């Protein structure tokens, strides 16, 4: 794909020959030529590379969507990937979930004590966990853990011709490798988010109990009495998007990796960078949308 794009690039570059004829100057009727610097061409090339990249991504997504809804879904591989995604991220998410709640509770407590509103603590912590902290932090961790894993795995499969080998075994690698991974991430990351939310609340109970004294049941019921549908629903929806983006970017970067071994590292690294960035951007958009409702 990008090789084709490169060809197009080069043919465009050929048209902009580095020398441009300028209309003959009247005073000294000699023809003059001006030279465009190398930098100008680098910029033109960069712009083209960026545009072809965008086009590549769109083609990739269209193809993926088509394959997702076509027959012969690879169900076994899908289940395996779900397990992989969940299993790989679980320990990390558990630790961060608990610490997230703990820190949040410890940090907010003094301020609430100051206003004499300690009883608000469970509800406040739960809302900020469920609305924002849980989804975003889980997604960022998964971008690092799962996105990079997918980028590296698919990248190395590409480099060592395993993807080609699948293709000659008349298996559609997009269906087998990518559709399953993207769907697994889309489905599992919201579950991981809920899990992190849950542990976060347990953590915040522990945090509140360092200085205060509240039973878990009371803490829990106080927390959930404050949570409404509107806190919960948009967060879940946005988690699905986080999952989809992490899967998509990881798979795209891996699948389009170059030919050398170094491209595996590049794929993994750029998968993390791009998916983290997109997670934050989606979060921003989601907050704006929820705010309007």
């Amino acid at each position, binding site marked *: 794909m990008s090789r084709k794009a490169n060809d197009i690039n080069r043919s465009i570059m050929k048209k902009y020959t580095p020398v441009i004829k300028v209309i003959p100057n009247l005073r000294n009727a000699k023809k003059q030529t001006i030279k465009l610097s190398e930098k100008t061409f680098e910029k033109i090339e960069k712009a083209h590379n960026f545009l072809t990249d965008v086009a590549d991504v769109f083609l990739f997504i269209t193809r993926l969507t088509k394959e997702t809804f076509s027959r012969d879904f690879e169900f076994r591989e899908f289940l395996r990937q779900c397990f992989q995604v969940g299993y790989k991220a679980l320990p990390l998410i558990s630790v961060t979930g608990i610490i997230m709640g703990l820190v949040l509770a410890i940090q907010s407590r003094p301020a609430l004590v100051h206003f004499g509103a300690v009883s608000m603590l469970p509800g406040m912590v739960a809302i900020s966990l469920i609305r924002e902290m849980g989804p975003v932090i889980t997604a960022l961790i998964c971008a690092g853990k799962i996105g990079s894993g997918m980028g590296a795995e698919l990248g*190395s499969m590409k480099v060592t011709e395993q993807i*080609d080998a699948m293709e000659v075994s008349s298996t559609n690698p997009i269906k087998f490798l990518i559709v399953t991974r993207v769907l697994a991430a889309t489905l599992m990351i919201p579950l991981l988010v809920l899990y992190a939310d849950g542990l976060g609340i347990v953590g915040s109970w522990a945090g509140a109990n360092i200085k205060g004294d509240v039973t878990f049941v009371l803490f829990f019921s106080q927390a959930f009495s404050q949570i409404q549908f509107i806190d919960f629903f948009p967060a879940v929806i946005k988690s699905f998007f986080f999952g989809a983006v992490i899967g998509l970017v990881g798979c795209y970067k891996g699948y389009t990796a170059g030919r050398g071994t170094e491209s595996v590292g590049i794929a993994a690294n750029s998968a993390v960078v791009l998916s983290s960035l997109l997670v934050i951007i989606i979060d921003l958009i989601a907050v704006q949308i929820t705010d309007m409702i």
Partner: protein
Amino acid sequence: MIVTQIPTIAPAKTNSDKQVIEINNLRKGFDQQEVLKNVSLQLFNGENLVVLGKSGSGKSVLIKCIVRLLNPDDGTIDVFGENVSSLNRDGLGELRKKIGFLFQSGALYDSMTVKQNLEFPLRRIKKDLTQKEIDEKINEVLENVGLSEALDKMPSQLSGGMRKRISLARTIVVDPMIMLYDEPTTGLDPVTSDEISSLINEVQKKYKTSSIIITHDIECARATANRVIMLHDGEVYQEGKLEEFEKSADALIKSFFK
């Protein structure tokens, strides 16, 4: 002016003259260079065609074009009378089921055990096999490549030569009608090389496969070739029987047969 007719080379006697692969004026280049400039060749039913050529002369590119892992820039490739470039995804899938492709790099699936590696094409190409038949088939090919004990190993636990043999096993396990071997004996010791060469011959006899064998290993070529083609500079440099190559006075060819 006298026009001398270039004699066309008849394939081995046992073969019927039917072509299974016909390539005409194939051209394929990449960003920086033109790899195949003008390649025409035929593979006849039941023969072993050995392709020789310097490293980088485009041998792997040639067979990748046959299964359309790479799209040719120009020229036609017909396999079983079907133009490969005009096939849609399903048609291509059907065609690929008939072709076995041994990758130069082996291309074993790292995340699967040897057994799963062999099961993968079997399950996808021969859908009506029972688990028992699959297991039997896997044991049989592993025995053929002399690696029965590797069944439950991961590819990372195997040596380079063992990987090569497992990937050969993975290729022949589905009994393809055409085999494309990319350097089947490179990196193997002479004894194992000989075994692989005779395995190639055995496959040819047993399943009546037609094969293209890319190799630098003259011993392997001697053991398997019915006909030889040499690629040079993006074109077919010479075509003929192995004996003709060995007797050739051409410097380039001689350097291969030292």
